């Protein structure tokens, strides 16, 4: 500090969840419920042909070997020609599920799969908010200290998203994960339909692991998140200049960043990648991480822009908005980098068991596949390239909305072809679930924002954030 500087006094602000915002949140939820209802009502109702309760173990006991790996309940449909048509003939190398149609699954699968997607999406968003928060501490970042209450609010959504995810896993695990279904068959080497790949992975891919592992990790992450949050509010109430909370936050942040960085991949493999259990990609976890990371930053930029518009966050300037825009832009490129890295190697090597993942997505979901790339890369890249675009809240709002839908659709595209095979569409139910949980998310996060002051008044780097300037 030079001679000219003098200690600045930053006033604490108290956020009020305005009735207008409450109304908007409720509209989102109601609209989401209506769209989900329309989605459920107009769903292909084929459950009379495919009884979901007989999907798992009953079929193979009552119908013998010919239907051992078939998901269909009725023997008269499960004749040999039908199996060939759907490619369900057991195959030693690639496993039994090469191609099938979504009507092979009970109708309720779609509800559980959508809950899984939306629960996972928001769980990862709230977890990446903790990661972002931790990185700011570990990197000694000063510019972000004026907006740190926003990720602090987003991260409180972890338990809600986790409950949604767990309900989906509990209710739909038999239909979503073919390895859970396979586990119930209890096949031994030499049996018809025995799958060496699934058997080899059963130490990791089994239904106990599916519940224990994510629960354990989320509890650990949640406890660390609570600790970071309590340190932050304790700093507010401490005397000015007391940096002990700050130092403690750095230590907890470093621990969280290392733990989360390693374990998030495993959760992505277990919950999302395993819908195609024969397929694997080592980059998948990071790809999942960055998809949600860039979405979380977009949501954060939205909340900061909203707070600015409502007259809060007096110390936040266009410079901070610009930096959030840069973050969105940079990680859009990083997303495309990982997207291409995963695709390019598989495309080049052309090994059948790796190709299977892209085969179905490129052949049967081509519009979705291309739309994914456009919404997550082309539009944000070109839209946010200019400096003036990153500093303009309206441009950020439009591009950011496309990005959020794009990345949600990205997760949808990871799960859906693996669960349903061909013929599924991104319809009312998918959009409805996003709006419904989005509305709950907004309510929850805005309520969390009211629980403490909007400014971390005793943060040692707050003054740096006040003077933050990226130059002309």
């Amino acid at each position: 500090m030079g001679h000219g500087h003098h200690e600045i006094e930053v006033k604490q602000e108290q956020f009020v969840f305005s009735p207008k915002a409450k109304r908007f949140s409720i509209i989102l939820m109601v609209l989401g419920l209506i769209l989900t209802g329309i989605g459920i009502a107009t769903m292909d109702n084929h459950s009379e042909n495919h009884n979901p309760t007989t999907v798992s173990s009953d079929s193979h006991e009552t119908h013998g070997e010919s239907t051992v790996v078939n998901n269909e309940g009725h023997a008269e449909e499960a004749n040999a020609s039908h199996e060939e048509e759907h490619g369900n003939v057991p195959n030693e190398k690639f496993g039994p599920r090469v191609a099938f149609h979504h009507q092979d699954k009970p109708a309720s699968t779609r509800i559980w799969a959508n809950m899984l997607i939306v629960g996972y999406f928001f769980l990862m968003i709230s977890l990446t908010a903790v990661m972002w928060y931790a990185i700011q501490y570990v990197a000694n970042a000063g510019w972000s200290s004026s907006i740190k209450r926003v990720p602090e609010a987003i991260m409180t959504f972890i338990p809600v998203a986790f409950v949604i995810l767990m309900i989906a896993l509990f209710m739909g695990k038999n239909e979503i994960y073919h390895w859970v279904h396979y586990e119930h068959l209890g096949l031994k080497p030499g049996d018809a339909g025995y799958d060496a790949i699934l058997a080899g992975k059963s130490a990791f891919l089994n239904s106990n692991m599916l519940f224990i592992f994510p629960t354990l990790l989320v509890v650990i992450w949640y406890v660390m998140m609570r600790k970071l949050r309590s340190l932050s509010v304790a700093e507010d109430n401490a005397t000015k200049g007391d940096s002990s909370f700050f130092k403690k936050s750095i230590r907890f942040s470093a621990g969280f960043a290392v733990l989360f960085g390693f374990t998030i991949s495993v959760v992505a493999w277990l919950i999302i990648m395993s819908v195609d259990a024969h397929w694997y990609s080592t980059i998948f976890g990071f790809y999942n991480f960055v998809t949600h990371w860039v979405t979380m930053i977009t949501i954060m930029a939205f909340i900061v822009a909203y707070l600015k518009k409502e007259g809060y966050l007096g110390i936040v300037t266009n410079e901070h908005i610009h930096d959030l825009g840069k973050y969105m832009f940079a990680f859009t490129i990083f997303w495309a980098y990982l997207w291409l890295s995963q695709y390019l190697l598989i495309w080049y090597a052309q090994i059948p068991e790796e190709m299977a993942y892209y085969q179905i997505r490129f052949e049967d979901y081509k519009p979705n596949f291309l739309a994914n790339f456009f919404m997550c890369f082309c539009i944000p890249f070109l839209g946010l390239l200019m400096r003036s675009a990153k500093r303009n809240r309206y441009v950020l709002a439009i591009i950011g909305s496309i990005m959020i839908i794009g990345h949600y659709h990205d997760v949808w595209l990871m799960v859906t072809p693996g669960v349903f095979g061909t013929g599924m569409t991104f319809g009312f139910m998918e959009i409805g679930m996003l709006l419904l949980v989005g509305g709950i998310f907004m309510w929850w996060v805005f309520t969390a924002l009211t629980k403490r002051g909007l400014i971390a008044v005793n943060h040692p780097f707050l003054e740096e954030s006040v003077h933050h300037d990226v130059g002309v």
Partner: protein
Amino acid sequence: MGILDKKLSLRHRNKMLIGVWEDEDQLVAAASELVHAGVHIHDIYTPYPVHGLDRIIGARRSKLARIAFFCAIIGFTLMTTMIWYMSVHDWPMNIGNKPVRFTPSWAPVMFEGTVLCTAFGMSFFFFWRNRLVHGIKNETLDIRQTDDRLIVAIETVPGMDEKSILNMMKNGGAIEMREFENGVQTVI
């Protein structure tokens, strides 16, 4: 194109008043006082970035970003043409029965080529503009501007009250003041 403008060279300038500062906070205060008094500051040379100075002296935005964009376009075109010529036009090869036209395998080449051209182009133009390219004589007003001193250069115009400007500089914390004319500096 501004980057090639001969007027940028200090030799083609009128007489200059030069002030040397030691403390950046005093400099910021003095610079804003000078600007408020209606003095046009030609430039301020600092060994490290001083926040806010660019806005005070009304510096225009750097053209480096635009140069980067054009270099990127050139690099992208160059690499696309190159790989098209190599693998489609001149010597198409069958690699794993992959198509030769516009395949994902082109992406890394295009990407890396774009980045390479952008990085080289930006460095080159940046050094050229700062007169650090071989063959261009660099004009350092004061060698200490690369170390720990902050140098303010004010170009004089006819009818300017030089005395009062020098006074303002002295009161604003300048530790040294000089005149620069025809390549010769005289201490005041």
